[in-house]
């Protein structure tokens, strides 16, 4: 089996290109991930259809089209509606996210200001939950 088949595919959407480049490098260096990035929210549906990621990490505040609108477009498309989406935002820090999680159980809000170790735990958790049909 090709090792790339074991890798989980992540699509990162963030208007900060430097963030995309560095996050891709970190995730691919630290875990079994293949990461595709885009800084253009208008490209997300097309890229998601072609790449068929296991998870989309989506920034919330982006110029042109915000993350919520992108998420709605993804959910409204037959080819992308089942792909899990997690919001990766600078609005909340890791402490906020932990508290939000403990209160709501929601694991789909992630902080850009957390460590990659924590981020990878959350990514794995979401992908595993999806594969179990949760």
């Amino acid at each position, binding site marked *: 089996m090709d090792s790339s088949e074991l890798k989980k595919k992540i699509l990162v959407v963030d208007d900060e290109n*430097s*963030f995309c480049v*560095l996050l891709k490098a970190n995730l691919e260096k630290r875990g079994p991930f293949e990461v595709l990035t885009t800084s253009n929210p208008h490209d997300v549906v097309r890229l998601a259809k072609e790449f068929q990621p296991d998870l989309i990490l989506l920034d919330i505040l982006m110029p042109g089209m915000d993350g919520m609108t992108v998420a709605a477009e993804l959910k409204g498309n037959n080819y992308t509606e089942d792909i899990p989406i997690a919001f990766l935002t600078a609005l909340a820090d890791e402490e*906020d996210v932990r508290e939000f999680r403990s209160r709501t159980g929601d694991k789909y809000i992630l902080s850009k*200001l957390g460590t990659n170790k924590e981020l990878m735990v959350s990514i794995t958790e979401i992908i595993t939950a999806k594969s179990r049909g949760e």
Partner: protein
Amino acid sequence: MGIHMNDIDKTKEQLINELSELRKQYVELKKASAALERARLIQSQTMSSLGVLSAGVAHEIKNPLSIILQGIELMEVSSSKEGVVDILAMMKDAVFRASRITKDLLTFSRENTPTLKETDLAQVINESLSLVDHIFSLKQINIVGKLSDDLPRVRADSNQMKQVFINLFTNAAEAMREGGTVTVTADISENFNKEKIVRIAVADSGCGISEEDKQRVFDPFYTTKRKSGGTGLGLSVVKGIIEKHRGSIRIESEPGKGTNVIIELPYS
């Protein structure tokens, strides 16, 4: 008749004088009240603009911080040189500190009106403790809870109260570098106005606070922990929240003898 006309006139004159004095005082009081209302309005508008500005600034600062953090973490996995690892750890701490400052500034500048609901304070305290549990374990700090079984439900904003307790617990942990004990007490009592209150005390066995610092701990941006990342906004935010709940907060402390923070919240 025992009362002379002179006496009546004198009393009448006296009453007129007093009435005139009262009128003057009433006018002055009205002026002062209007000035206070204007000042409140200006403060509210200033804080509101500051809140909007801070929210924008916070996001604009946190985005580049997240890029720096990613860069540091990439260098961490690419280099195992001892000196470099230490430098990267320091840089990472600085990123988290800057992030915390923007967050505290944002909290401080927001005019957060509490959403008051019947709240079980014991539950809020226990949930807050569970969120800082890892810090206490790391620093070998024991927690002693003395929460009265008959605590009444208090009209409070549970999220804001959680913020209060997390702040106080974190401060207590920071005051006990060698470990120690945090005692959390909650019971019912009466304040000096004979109002029924819930009194919550968070006492630590840490280094205590000097008289000079005690006078200023609630001042915005005043901190004794600048080097370790203190922003000086934590306790001023706490005080603001408690006052919006019509409560009061005070600190009893002596250097070397620990600190006791006492919060009183009315209930009826």
